[in-house]
């Protein structure tokens, strides 16, 4: 970067690195991590990220609850998780150090901002003495750096206010880390120019801070080694880094394009789903209407109303919102109209921990309605998979005229990974016909006469002459849709509503068992795919055979699932709940599945699963 008279530094090659940036909520750690991630992606590493932030927007400065962090894992091979433990912790203050220290393995690098290690800040988090001055960090490689004061000094000539200069310290840290790991930085400089386009002095300040950090790394004696992580071998194509929420939004856009239908999103802001609303609200040119409704119930109601009118109706929310929408989803079951309900799960019950992850809405999705009201349920396995899961949800909703619940969660929603951009023309064609002519004798229109293949009823939208009809929540007579209290008819209709969901064809589940000699199968669903996969790889490397299968379709389940499960001596089901899928599998297939559960608000680490699975493989 700069022409400086620098000591020669040793360059060391690494296969993978996990860095965690941690600081106050206002320190810009999410942005810093995001930029570092982009640099790693530009270099061609495989990456996986995990942000972790408090629900409070600005918790009191310097306190433990106010700590926000961003972990990025980058490697020269394909990786499945954001990493169990950081190799490097960047701690912007004592709170960030204290909150994250327990996660660090012995020998990890710790870069601390010494300017913030004041008596007052230490006292805030209960440090009697500075951990930098006693031997409590003896097991780590501590790099004390006066981040704030060096940033302020570096910006002394730029004329920015001291407050703005101090705020640029995250760019100093980013510059230092970018130097340490030999990252290309052009995209970051470009990003700063765009972000502060209206305030050139801030572009200059942040750029100067970044350069100062880089140059500090190059010149200081404290960092003797510079690291390189070579590009990973990845499938050819164009990639971008994507979060699950962004991928969901793009998947909904794609569903609109590929169905030729206008999209109507009804949503009420809720963490961690709001970003899907934000993203979709930018894409009106695709014929996407976003309505911020007065409440969760109105959000789904408006979406259903739009579906009735011939749009692809979508609503986005998290668990508490699904509970509120339940009655309307049941109405959609009775009306047999397309509806996509996206639940970005968070830790519950009630408000729970809104920024933490959990998979505990599976029962809610499968059963959380009154009456016999089955719906299709699917779950993405990774951030980029959210794109394809959204398209699949729309395909099922449109083809089979049913509500579909898509279960994402906070882990995939805010995590990111490289996404191999699809060829748009190869995405599924989602066009479905509207009814345009009477389908009964004497020119009558029968709104509940079903397609023999899909068991879907005709989608007859208002404005179509000759098909005027009434639908509603009251039980309907088969074919005519007239109100019916006939006992046999109700029995028939309840069963056909169940049958039509159960009969939706979904792809067979695939088993990964490279040596084809495993006796234990680990079955997962949703966002646990990464940690389960990483754990399985680790076991296989140690010659412990294990098979992995992952469910995308939770209702209906793949037709081959029963046979797959029966072929193994043991079936283990790790979930971030108290065993909801395990109970379902036991009930459906009479398999004595072994549940393994964690409800800490955090994703499984691969090591946790590896230990557990090792025990099952060895001891049965």
């Amino acid at each position: 970067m700069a022409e400086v008279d620098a000591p020669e530094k040793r360059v060391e090659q690494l296969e993978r690195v996990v860095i965690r940036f941690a600081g106050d909520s206002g320190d810009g750690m999410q942005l810093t991590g995001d930029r570092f991630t982009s640099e790693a992606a530009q270099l061609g590493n495989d990456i996986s990220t995990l942000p972790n932030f408090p629900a409070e927007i600005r918790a009191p400065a310097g306190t433990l609850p106010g700590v926000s962090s961003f972990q990025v894992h980058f490697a020269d091979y394909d990786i499945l998780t954001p990493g169990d433990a950081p190799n490097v912790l960047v701690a912007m203050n004592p709170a960030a150090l204290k909150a994250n220290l327990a996660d660090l393995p012995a020998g990890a690098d710790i870069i601390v901002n010494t300017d913030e290690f004041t008596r007052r800040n230490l006292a805030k988090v209960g440090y009697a003495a500075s951990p930098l001055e006693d031997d409590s960090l003896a097991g780590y490689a501590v790099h004390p750096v006066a981040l704030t004061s060096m940033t302020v000094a570096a910006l002394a000539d730029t004329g920015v206010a001291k407050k703005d200069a101090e705020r640029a310290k995250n760019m100093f840290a980013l510059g230092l880390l970018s130097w340490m790991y030999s990252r290309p930085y052009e995209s970051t400089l470009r990003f700063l120019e765009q972000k502060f386009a209206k305030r050139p002095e801030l572009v200059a300040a942040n750029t100067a801070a970044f350069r100062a950090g880089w140059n500090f790394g190059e010149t200081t004696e404290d960092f003797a080694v510079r690291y390189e992580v070579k590009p990973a071998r990845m499938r050819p194509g164009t990639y971008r880094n994507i979060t699950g929420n962004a991928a969901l939004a793009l998947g909904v856009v794609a569903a609109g394009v590929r169905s030729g239908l206008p999209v109507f999103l009804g949503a009420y802001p809720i963490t961690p789903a709001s970003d899907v609303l934000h993203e979709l609200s930018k894409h009106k040119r695709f014929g996407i209407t976003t309505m911020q409704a007065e409440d969760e119930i109105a959000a789904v109601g408006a979406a259903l109303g739009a579906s009735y009118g011939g749009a692809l109706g979508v609503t986005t929310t998290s668990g508490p919102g699904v509970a509120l929408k339940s009655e309307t989803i049941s109405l959609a079951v009775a009306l047999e109209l397309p509806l996509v309900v996206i639940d970005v799960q968070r830790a519950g019950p009630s408000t729970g921990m809104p920024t933490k992850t959990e998979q505990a809405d599976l029962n809610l999705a499968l059963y959380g309605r009154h009456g016999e009201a089955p719906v299709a349920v699917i779950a993405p396995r990774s951030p980029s998979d959210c794109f394809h899961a959204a398209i699949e949800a729309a395909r099922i909703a449109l083809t089979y005229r049913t509500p579909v619940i898509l279960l994402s969660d906070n882990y995939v929603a805010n995590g990111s990974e490289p996404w191999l951009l699809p060829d748009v023309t190869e995405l599924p064609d989602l066009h479905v016909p509207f009814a345009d002519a009477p389908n009964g004798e004497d020119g009558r229109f029968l709104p509940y006469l079903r397609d023999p293949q899909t068991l879907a009823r005709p989608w007859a939208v208002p404005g179509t002459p000759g098909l005027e009809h009434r639908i509603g929540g009251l039980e309907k007579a088969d074919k005519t849709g007239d109100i019916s209290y006939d006992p046999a008819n109700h029995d028939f209709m309840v069963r056909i509503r169940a049958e039509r969901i159960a009969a939706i064809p979904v792809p067979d589940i695939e088993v990964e068992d490279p040596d084809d000699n495993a006796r234990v199968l680990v079955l997962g669903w949703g966002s646990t795919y990464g940690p389960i996969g990483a754990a399985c790889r680790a076991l296989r490397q140690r010659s412990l055979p294990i098979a992995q299968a992952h469910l995308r379709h939770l209702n209906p389940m793949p037709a081959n699932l029963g046979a797959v499960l029966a072929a193994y001596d043991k079936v283990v089901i790790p979930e971030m709940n108290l065993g909801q899928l395990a109970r379902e599998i036991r009930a459906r297939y009479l398999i004595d599945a072994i549940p393994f559960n964690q409800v800490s608000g955090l994703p499984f680490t691969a090591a946790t699963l590896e230990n557990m699975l090792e025990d099952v493989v060895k001891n049965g």
Partner: protein
Amino acid sequence: MASPAIPAGRTPLKLTAKDFKSDQEVRWCPGCGDYAILAAVQQFMPELGIPRENIVFVSGIGCSSRFPYYMNTYGMHSIHGRAPAIATGLSSSRPDLSVWVVTGDGDALSIGGNHLIHALRRNVNVKILLFNNRIYGLTKGQYSPTSEIGKITKSTPAGSADSPFNPLSLALGAEASFVARTIDSDRKHLQSVLRAAAEHHGSAFVEIYQNCNIFNDGAFELLKDASSRDDHLIRLEQGQPITFGADGRYSVVHPEGSFGLQVREGGEAIVHDATVDDPAYAFALSRLSGSDLSTTPIGVFRNVPRPTYDEIVQKQLLDARAQATGTPDEMLSGLLNTGDTWTIL
């Protein structure tokens, strides 16, 4: 009605009331006021000149909400209180449709109060007909949010403890751009109010006093009985002084120094103007009627133009589309390739 228009190339329709009768058997109690409203609406609908397929009735739950089944148009009998929300999604995504919401005092003002006020606030282009019988009929006789305080019902044997809503005051507080009241038994007046509501571009809120002859019979008899109605019913006519009673002996006046309107014997009657922009006038009119109905205006209280939610939403879509180039697939491909991308060969 400003929208929807008759589709281009279609000759004006010659429909009759019969065309709007569905093949479903009407199942309200004999003598219910709903029959009169249904007949009035079916007779009025041909006037609109709108093809039946472009008309949608959406309802919630309650006796009144069975209404869509009896109209030979498109219709949805939805769930309790949610009709305005469902109609908002339908109307804003399909501005070519004429969307009507039929609701009752429990459906609109109790379980669905939130959706009602927000539909009115947004000025969604829907016509909301609130059948107010001041009682819960379909659940067999509990008090409603418009029942007078002290109402003795199955669920309140010692008398209800809560004060009722004044539906028109509520609608005006929610920024409704069209607010009116009429009575089930006065077909001519009911249809004149429907006509004005249909012509209004935006949310139209129409309260219809409706007699439940089973659980709250005679609730509005004071306004219907020939011997009493003239002294209690105030007919609002645009541009006319507001007087009532025999030979117009009562006047609605605006006393100096008063915030509201009052009824006086004699005095200078104010001239009715529903188009006054300041909602305080219509609100003052709405406050003339209390639970005892002793001085009850009917007619159009407020009728002012305001941009509709549907228009704004559609304009944003059109403006965005006008700037887009390429096929949808090309646009999508461009969107996916946005931001920092990298290519592996």
